[in-house]
């Protein structure tokens, strides 16, 4: 299985340098070939496992438990403007 590494890298928001891309594409190709072994198993009537424990219906009550941590977070933020987090301009097309 070959993957379109440029498309995947764009989806994952990772820029790849040209030299890095070649090596990664080869590695990922090897891994995908290895993973290919699963296709030999018949799993038509096997349900998928998302959780190993049979826990269900875990809720919390609708109670307010305010936490005053925002100043700790903003103080270490890459960029803040007052009580907001600041990010570079969202450019049309991005």
């Amino acid at each position, binding site marked *: 299985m070959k*993957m379109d*590494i440029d498309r*995947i*890298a764009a*989806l*994952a*928001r*990772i*820029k*790849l*340098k040209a030299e*890095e891309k070649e090596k*990664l594409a080869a*590695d*990922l190709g*090897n*891994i*995908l070939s*290895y*993973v290919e*072994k*699963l*296709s030999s*198993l018949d*799993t038509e009537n*096997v*349900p*998928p*496992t*998302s*959780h*190993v*424990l049979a*826990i269900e219906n*875990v809720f*919390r009550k609708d109670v307010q438990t305010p*936490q005053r*941590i925002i100043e*700790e*977070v903003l103080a*270490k*933020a*890459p*960029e803040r403007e007052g009580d907001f*987090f600041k*990010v*570079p*301009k*969202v*450019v049309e097309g*991005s």
Partner: protein
Amino acid sequence: MPQGSLTIKGLREEIRKDRSAIRSACRLLSERIKTVDSKVRAYAAFDDARFEAEVERLTEEKDPSVTGKPLFGVPISLKDNLCVRGWETTCASRILKGYVPPYDATVIQKLRANGAIIFGKCNMDEFAFGSSTESSCYGPTANPWDLSRVPGGSSGGSAACVAADEAIAALGSDTGGSIRQPASLCGVVGVKPTYGRVSRYGLIAFGSSLDQIGPLAKTVEDAAILTNVISGHDPKDSTSANAAVPDFTRACVPDVKGLRVGLPKEYFVAGLDREVETAVRNAAEKLASMGAVVTDISLPHTEYAVAVYYIVAVAEASSNLGRFDGVQYGYRHPANQLLDMYFETRDHGFGSEAKRRILLGTFVLSAGYYDAYYLKGQKVRTLIKRDFDHAFKQVDVILTPVSPTPAFKIGERTQDPLAMYLSDIFTIPMNLAGIPAISVPCGFSKGNLPIGVQFAAKHFDEETMFRAAYAFEQGTDFHKRKPEL
């Protein structure tokens, strides 16, 4: 005054006799770190100033309900993926440099509530992606038994600092063997509890359906003490089990008479180092000699476990790591527009193994491939889990190797990701099934490298796991040997 190699149990005795043992134990460890950590590099961050006030407070503590706590005055080191309020927590990644969590992980709260001192933060593979602690932004940790070799990973720093007497015990996390494999390679005890036994709240996630926090310690009993403390239902973690937590130290009895032990034939195959195989088979014989009933069993889907793992774990990881985007915390690469900020931050912030796994995970979830990869992986996961369900109808505990080989050379597998992934071939199935497993020292190679044996039990049956491990440990001397540094 404590000296030499300290255990939790030993230090508790010393503190009971003389409260000043808290300070002298911390000082002893601190001295040891100053002497040997330039070689081992087990710590990502260590600073005496961090715990001095705590040492002071505990030394003066009068309340017997506090001084009677199981970890009263005991320093515990942590893998750098556990959040401690006010301590930089980086997962050994550039992208989290400067991130200071505003909250404590549930296990940190439990450690503190039980009198422990949060001591230092241990090195690890970046985001726990690896089996060698080489992918850390702090550089690799060395194996205390042979400094040219890896300590295993991803909790390599936690294992190495315990092995090198730079810590009494430590916490790590295990997604596919990240506690047990380094424990095996460093000659210490490592436990991955049942999925859901220990709250994941405050553990920076890798593979959310696989991750468990667990102890690395010098003895099975110490590991049981730590497991006692960190276990239990947490309303902040929906996947945390509301199951009673027995006192695991009471399971530490040297008695395996009648215990049914299974040896899965699929774990003794090509690729398994001869010395490892011999040590592990000897361990089975040792148990048999102590009255256990050892039988051969089959876990037929074992060979698919690594493939399933590298779909499921990376898929979850690719999503879990999306939040590292430079918006709120950690590293941000300067950029004039948003999209550039994302791409540059994640390019410069993540190491190559992190990128590899994020890309792989993104791919297996992407449109057109989900069914062939992710869904298929989840279905085969069911088959692997069923193998164990079936096996545990015949036996009480499953005995296997932990790592196919003893510690390998630093740099040996970094160019071959698949070879690295196969380091976890015997530990991954337990994560996929969610069952508890422990690694205990069971021998040494001719090159004097530690070898570990794994005992796995069924969901929430850590007691049987501890019983087998403790009996075996008490019947052998491997855990008493120390690396020379």
